[in-house]
């Protein structure tokens, strides 16, 4: 049985019907990970530990205590700390780090225990590759090498959650966790032909999630369908008193609307399930810089939503272009502060030769961090330094408020916003590494939702002439994840883009 083609919704049914055990599934995927090392999607596996978890899951099922996700394997982005697997965040700085605890997301998805009696019972397959400290859009900034795109190994998988996306696209994991600070779930999902959702800021606990830019970071799933993402997000989202930004009412069943019509619980007209839905297309998202084939695929996606009953209208997000400088001031500023903890004293890389504390800090950090991380720390220190703080940092925070307000104006005219995820399909490895600014500009459609804290998702909507996947982005108002997933699910009932498999993957 080729389980790697299956959604987790199908795996859940197969496990419940005793067609397969978690032990068999886990060993199946561990074997695929071992054989699929060419993608460089995983940074660490621990087969003995994964198998022990699978056995525990099978026992839970034998005792009649299984939930919908019990025994289903999941891969975690290496930004989540884990006991038993390395937790490097893609950095040499943390190459030998052993976490004394599990991140909240890892614990909550893993095996139930005294601390987490309601944990989902999923089996951890290992840790996925990523851009160092989640800084990057191509996964080429990993200290452990780039991830290759399963649709074309000469191309990038996207980033920063590139390992998670490649793992799912190559069938090495049925689903994976990711994090999104400026598009790091949505963009690799789009570039690898997958579905991914970044929930509203505050939905998912960031306890044990190695911090990049704390006012923007948020975790979410990357999977094969909106339904799969709804299931995983439901298990990932809960109130966690250990994260001061975790919302008190964050837990929710995000799958509750999936099979409903937009405007009524009963679907009176099955051919028009989205009747009553108003979809806004921001003119700025279809302006100069968007590849014509991507524009065509996203417009066709809008057409299909219209066929399903939705009304399409035009909206405006006037500060879209400014989201790039605003983000590349605020995120590095927060990063320069967050990454000051890496000083070579308590954990992390320490240089071999030093005479005093100052030299130890400087050499340890310079050896431990890669080029992009250093670049962002320098930008951050600069914009926070005396004389520049008002002009850069405060000005960026003020424009951030305007960007968030512009979304609210748009949501007065529509229920969701639709646009591209990225200006083009996956580019060739090495194509943009010499010019960091080119890489930053490619984040134009994803940054503004992080700045505003809104939920947004990536849904496969076609391919270009070279058979590279294209993703469309659905942006919703705060806490509308279940509605976004409903729209995406209805779209995926009428299309099969999300089910296509790369020919390189067998």
């Amino acid at each position, binding site marked *: 049985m080729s389980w790697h083609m299956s959604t987790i919704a199908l795996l859940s049914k197969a496990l419940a019907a005793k067609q397969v055990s978690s032990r068999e599934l886990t060993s199946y995927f561990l074997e695929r990970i071992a054989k699929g090392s060419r993608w460089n999607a995983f940074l660490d596996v621990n087969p003995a530990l994964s198998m022990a978890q699978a056995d525990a899951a099978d026992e839970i099922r034998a005792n009649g205590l299984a939930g919908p996700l019990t025994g289903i394997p999941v891969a975690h982005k290496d930004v989540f700390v884990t006991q038993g697997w390395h937790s490097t965040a893609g950095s040499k700085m943390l190459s*030998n780090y*052993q976490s*004394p605890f599990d991140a909240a997301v890892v614990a909550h998805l893993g095996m139930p225990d005294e601390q987490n009696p309601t944990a989902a019972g999923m089996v951890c397959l290992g840790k996925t590759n990523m851009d160092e400290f989640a800084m990057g859009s191509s996964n080429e900034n990993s200290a452990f090498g780039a991830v290759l795109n399963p649709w074309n190994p000469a191309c990038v998988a996207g980033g920063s959650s590139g390992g998670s996306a490649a793992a799912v696209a190559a069938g090495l994991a049925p689903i994976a966790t990711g994090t999104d600070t400026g598009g790091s779930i949505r963009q690799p999902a789009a570039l690898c032909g997958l579905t991914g959702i970044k929930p509203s*800021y*505050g939905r998912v606990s960031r306890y044990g999630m190695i911090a990049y830019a704390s*006012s923007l970071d948020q975790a979410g799933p990357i999977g094969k369908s909106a339904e799969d993402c709804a299931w995983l997000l439901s298990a990932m989202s809960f109130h966690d008193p250990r994260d*001061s*930004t975790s919302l008190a009412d964050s837990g929710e069943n995000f799958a509750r609307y999936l099979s409903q019509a937009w405007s009524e619980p009963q679907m009176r007209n099955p051919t028009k399930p989205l009747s009553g839905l108003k979809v806004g297309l921001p003119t700025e998202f279809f302006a100069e810089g968007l590849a014509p084939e991507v524009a065509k695929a996203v417009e066709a996606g809008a057409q299909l939503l219209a066929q399903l009953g939705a009304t399409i209208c035009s909206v405006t997000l006037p*500060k879209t*272009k*400014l989201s*790039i*400088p*605003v983000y*590349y*001031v605020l995120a590095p500023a927060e990063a320069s502060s967050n990454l*000051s903890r890496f*000083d*070579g*004293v*308590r*954990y*992390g*890389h*320490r240089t071999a030769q*030093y*005479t*005093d*504390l100052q030299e*130890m800090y*400087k*050499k340890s*950090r*310079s050896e431990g961090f890669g080029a992009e991380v*250093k*670049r962002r*720390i*320098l*930008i951050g*220190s*600069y*914009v926070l*330094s005396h004389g520049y703080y008002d*002009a*850069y940092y405060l*000005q960026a*925070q*003020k*424009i*951030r*408020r*305007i960007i*968030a307000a512009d979304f609210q104006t748009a949501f007065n005219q529509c229920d969701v916003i639709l646009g591209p995820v990225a200006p083009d399909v996956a580019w060739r490895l090495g194509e943009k590494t010499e*010019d*960091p*600014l080119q890489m*930053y500009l490619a984040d134009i459609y994803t940054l503004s939702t992080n*700045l*505003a*804290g809104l939920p947004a998702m990536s849904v496969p909507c076609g391919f270009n002439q070279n058979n590279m996947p294209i993703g469309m982005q659905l942006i919703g108002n705060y806490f509308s994840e279940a509605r976004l997933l409903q729209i995406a699910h209805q779209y995926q009932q009428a299309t099969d883009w999300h089910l296509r498999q790369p020919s390189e993957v067998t």
Partner: protein
Amino acid sequence: MKLDEVQRIAHLSRLELSDSEAKAILPQLQAIFALVAEMQAVDTSGCEPMAHPILFLRDLAQPLRVDQVSETDQRTVNMRSAPAQEDGYFLVPRVLE
């Protein structure tokens, strides 16, 4: 931005950059700050800075927990990744002469 400024912020960042590294990074930073300069054209008078999306969304009281011991002693496991240690303490170069 000039070369001596790159070295100044490198020091503030506790990063060591060789002269050739600093020279290589300067044009990249200049290009990024040329883009950042576009922000200056925006009229933000009367606009409050937004540090955090939740603050935009709702007035959120900073949650407080009861001030009590919740963790058991984890010293051994917490020090497992320390680069240098002795008798349960982190070792650093001498700071005071």
